[in-house]
């Protein structure tokens, strides 16, 4: 019973971590084909903004989280305009030398990776120069739930709930709204979408903004439970990539499913071996096996399965 509860809590914990880490990246990578290695630093941005809104401005924690998410989204739009789409440098280039200076990084996986790695170096080091090697943390709200000899932070349960909410909201946004339809059209075929009158530039900009905002939200939510160091983004990056790629082409559903599967693997192994290190290794190995045997990710597998069933009927 107690062990079962432990397992359940560990699962919720891993699930929330994987889903929240991946949410922003899933949107950016899945829709724009940009590998954002600065994803962890967007999370850092959100976490620092939250913490400093609370400690310096005296905002209540939930308000600080909202402010931080919006700030990160805004920062994301700036990054998209200056680096990813090259709009600002090209505008300057047109004015000064009469030609475009750079090409957009959309769908250029390797180049986007190097560029965003450069950005992440700049951001981590800037955070260190501006704020030092660590800043004060805000306390974890809500206290603990106790059972038997164990106790568990209520806030972690709240995180699991929020991760489900984020998934539902993203699912609604991308499948039930006009904006979502535009985004999916742009993702499937940019040329045709453009021909049908969709402003793909604007779609990309907003998508990147939403992805950054989600990363900022993740940072905001984890701000009370992490130590505030410039390198705090690192721990999110790999899990985020793994979850997105294992999830496959259907971005939101895939993230939910891979969060569930990888969370379960990680929680079970952590529970069996009593070591989070082995839980993490199991998660990584599970991801490697999933990529090898389900090349289209989990949702790609489901789609193929459904297509086969339709053919048989």
């Amino acid at each position, binding site marked *: 019973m107690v062990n079962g509860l432990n397992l359940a809590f560990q699962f919720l914990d891993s699930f929330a971590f994987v889903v929240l880490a991946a949410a922003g990246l899933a949107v950016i990578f899945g829709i724009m*084909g940009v*590998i954002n*290695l600065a994803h962890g630093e967007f999370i850092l941005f959100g976490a620092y903004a939250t913490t400093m809104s609370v400690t310096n401005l005296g905002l209540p924690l939930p308000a600080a989280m909202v402010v931080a998410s919006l700030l990160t989204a805004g920062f994301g739009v700036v990054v998209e305009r200056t*680096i990813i789409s*090259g709009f600002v*440098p090209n505008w300057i280039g047109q004015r000064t030398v009469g030609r475009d*200076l*750079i*090409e957009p*990084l959309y*769908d*250029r*996986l*390797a*180049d986007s*990776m*190097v*560029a965003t*790695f*450069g*950005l*992440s*170096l*700049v951001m*981590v*080091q*800037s955070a*260190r*120069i501006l704020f030092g090697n660590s800043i004060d943390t805000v306390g974890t709200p809500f206290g603990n739930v106790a059972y038997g000899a164990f106790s568990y932070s209520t806030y972690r349960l709240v995180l699991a709930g929020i991760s489900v909410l984020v998934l539902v909201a993203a699912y609604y946004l991308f499948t039930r709204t006009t904006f979502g339809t535009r985004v999916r059209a742009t993702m499937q075929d940019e040329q045709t979408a453009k021909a049908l009158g969709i402003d793909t530039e604007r779609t990309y900009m907003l998508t990147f903004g939403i992805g950054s905002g989600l990363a900022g939200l993740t940072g905001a939510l984890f701000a009370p439970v992490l130590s505030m160091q410039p390198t705090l983004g*690192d721990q999110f*990056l*790999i899990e985020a*990539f*793994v979850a997105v*790629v294992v999830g496959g082409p259907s971005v939101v559903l895939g993230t939910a499913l891979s969060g569930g599967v990888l969370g379960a693997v990680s929680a079970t192994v952590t529970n069996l071996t009593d*070591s989070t*290190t*082995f839980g*993490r*290794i199991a998660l*990584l*190995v599970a*991801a*490697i096996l999933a*990529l*090898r*045997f389900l*090349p289209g990710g989990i949702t790609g597998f489901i789609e193929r399965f459904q297509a086969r069933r339709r053919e048989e009927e």
Partner: protein
Amino acid sequence: MATDSASATDRGALARIRGRLEGPNTIGNSRGFWLGFAVAVLALAAFPVVGSGESFSLFLVLALLGLSLSLVWGYSGVLSFGQVVFFGVGGYTFGVVSINFPDATGITAAAIAGVVGGGVAAALLGYFMFYGGVRDVYVTIITLVTTMAMHTFMAQTAGSEWTIGEAPLGGFNGMPGIPLLELGIEGVASFQFVYNEMSLLGLFAFDPFYYLALALLLVTYLGLRVLVNSDFGRVMVAVREDQDRTQMFGYDVKRIKLLTFTLGGALAALSGVLYAARNVYISPPVFALWFATLPVIWVSVGGRKSLLGAVIATIAIEYFRLSVQGEMALVVLGAMLLVFILALPGGIVPWVAGKLSGSAVPVSELDDADAPGEVSES
């Protein structure tokens, strides 16, 4: 190697050697290039007289790692974050074997074991991926995840149960006490390369390890030039440009990728062996994310379709990264990467070569083959 010193007597042989070294897949096929190359090699050979060869040897060792990625990514189109896995496997294997057999014969065998170990690891991972039908970005992610799994695993090997023979893996603190690099056969002929000052005419003290690294780098570079300009190299490039079409022509694409990946792994492992030997120490940060990203950066900045670019960019970036101290160094490096990759996506060295040879084709057009956009049209 003295291909440029054209003496009249064996002109035919020289031309033959030069013919094998040159081709469309490498930059620098002119007499002027080889002249500059000879000057550069001589300058590197003379460098310890003015600078510190002991610290510069690190960049030469890492250039081998850069070359391994240039081969795998630049010439066969397999973007691998796993080169540091084979680098680390090579280094750790060298450490374990040499600590257990700390004499010249043992250490020589350890170096060979390290290179073979890295090659075998690459062959296993490559077989698992390429023959399982894993392609493109999924290969990149699998290699990245493998690196992270190795990092997590090696960091927890602190306990005494993780001891192989006499050699404790040491967890996050790493494996100290790797014996000094001594190559040869114990009691017959052997020479110690690390911390063994050699003096020339009693005037200058030299670090022999520097010359070992330089010689290996030179041989590897020229060897890879021969390889990428051979028939096999042409097929490698064909795989990079269009995998499906190459397969339609009847080439075994999987085997070609596996062979290249294995060779790249062995090369990365050689770099790892030299790294461990130079530092007499190796630790899990060689599997860390930032270290795994470094080769990708060197090769991107230098020009991934150019072996020379990989070498030059590795040496330049590492020299800059390690010599410019102070807190602004990383900011400058990050900004530099951003600017270079945005302004010169084909890399610096191909751009410079294009300018020098007055080629009319702009670099951006040379590099278009990598954009997945054109794949979707087919």
